[in-house]
C-alpha cells in the first residue's frame, strides 16, 4: 500500500448518533461515573402514557413543567408498569410551574424496589384529574 499526496482519514462520523444505547452501565461506587439519560414524556391529561424502554434503566429523579393551570385532584405518578416508582405528585399548580419530587414526605419518594426497569419494560406516566392535568415530564435515569 502506498500513499502519494493523499489523505487518509480514519474517523467516525458520530454527529447526532449518541443515545442511551451507547451508555455504560455503572455499578455502585464506580470510578468513572455513569452518563445521565433523560426520558421526556409528553403526558396528556387524565391519561396513562407508556414508554417501552430499550435498555434496562434506573429511575433516579423526576421533574417537569405543567402545561396549563391545574384543577383540584390532579396528580402525576411515575411507574414501572403497574408498580409505583414515585409518590403521587400534586399537580394542581399554575401553568408552567416546575414539578419536582420535593413537595412533602408523602409525595417525595422513590421506591428502590421498583426504580429499575428491565429492558423492554414499561416506563409509565399517569395523570389523574381534570382535562388540565397535562404536563411535560422529564425522567432522569441511568443504564443498569
Amino acid at each position, binding site marked *: 500500500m502506498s500513499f502519494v499526496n493523499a489523505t487518509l482519514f480514519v474517523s467516525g462520523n458520530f454527529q447526532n448518533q449518541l443515545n442511551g444505547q451507547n451508555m455504560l*452501565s455503572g455499578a*455502585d461506587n464506580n470510578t468513572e461515573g455513569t452518563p445521565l439519560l433523560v426520558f421526556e414524556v409528553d403526558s396528556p391529561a387524565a391519561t396513562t402514557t407508556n414508554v417501552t424502554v430499550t435498555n434496562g434503566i434506573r429511575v433516579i429523579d423526576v421533574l417537569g413543567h405543567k402545561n396549563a393551570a391545574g384543577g383540584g385532584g390532579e396528580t402525576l405518578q411515575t411507574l414501572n408498569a403497574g408498580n409505583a416508582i414515585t409518590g403521587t405528585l400534586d399537580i394542581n399548580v399554575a401553568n408552567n410551574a416546575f414539578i419536582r419530587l420535593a413537595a412533602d414526605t408523602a409525595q417525595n419518594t422513590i421506591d428502590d424496589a421498583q426504580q429499575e426497569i428491565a429492558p423492554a419494560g414499561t416506563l409509565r406516566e399517569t395523570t389523574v384529574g381534570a382535562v388540565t392535568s397535562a404536563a411535560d415530564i422529564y425522567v432522569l435515569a441511568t443504564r443498569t
Partner: protein
Amino acid sequence: MAFVQDTLIIEGSIATNNLDANAMASRADQNVLGREALVYRAAVAGVGNTDVTLQQAVRVLAVWCVKTGGAGAGGDTITVSNGASAITNAMVTNVADTTVVRATSVDRTNANIAAGGTLRYTGAGAATNAAIVYVLAARNSGA
C-alpha cells in the same frame, strides 16, 4: 493498493454499552455545545466513609439521596465530600423509607474534585442509617 491524490474515509460508529466519563469532553463555562452530565451512585449503609477514587476531574453540581431500609433515626445524616472537605450540607436522613432528600448547599470551593481525588460519602448517626446517594457531576473544565 495505491492512493494518489485521493481521500479515504473509514467511517465508524459509537460502540454500544461503552460510554462513560472517559469519552466525555472537558468544557469551559459558557461553552456552546453543552456539557455531558455524569451520575455517581453509592449505597451508604451505617456510619462511616465510603470512598471512591475518581479517574477524571469532575465538578459536583447537585446531590440527592433516597432513604432505604426503613425509617431513619435521630441524628442520621449523609454528607458528600471532596476528600475530607465537605461539598454538601449534612443531609438529614431521619425520614421515612423511600423519601428523597436533596442537598441544600454545595460548597463551590470543594466541588471540584481532581483526577485521582476522593469522592467521599459519609454516613453519621445510627448503624441503621441507609440510603442510595446520587451525585450529579460533569467533567471539570480544568481537567
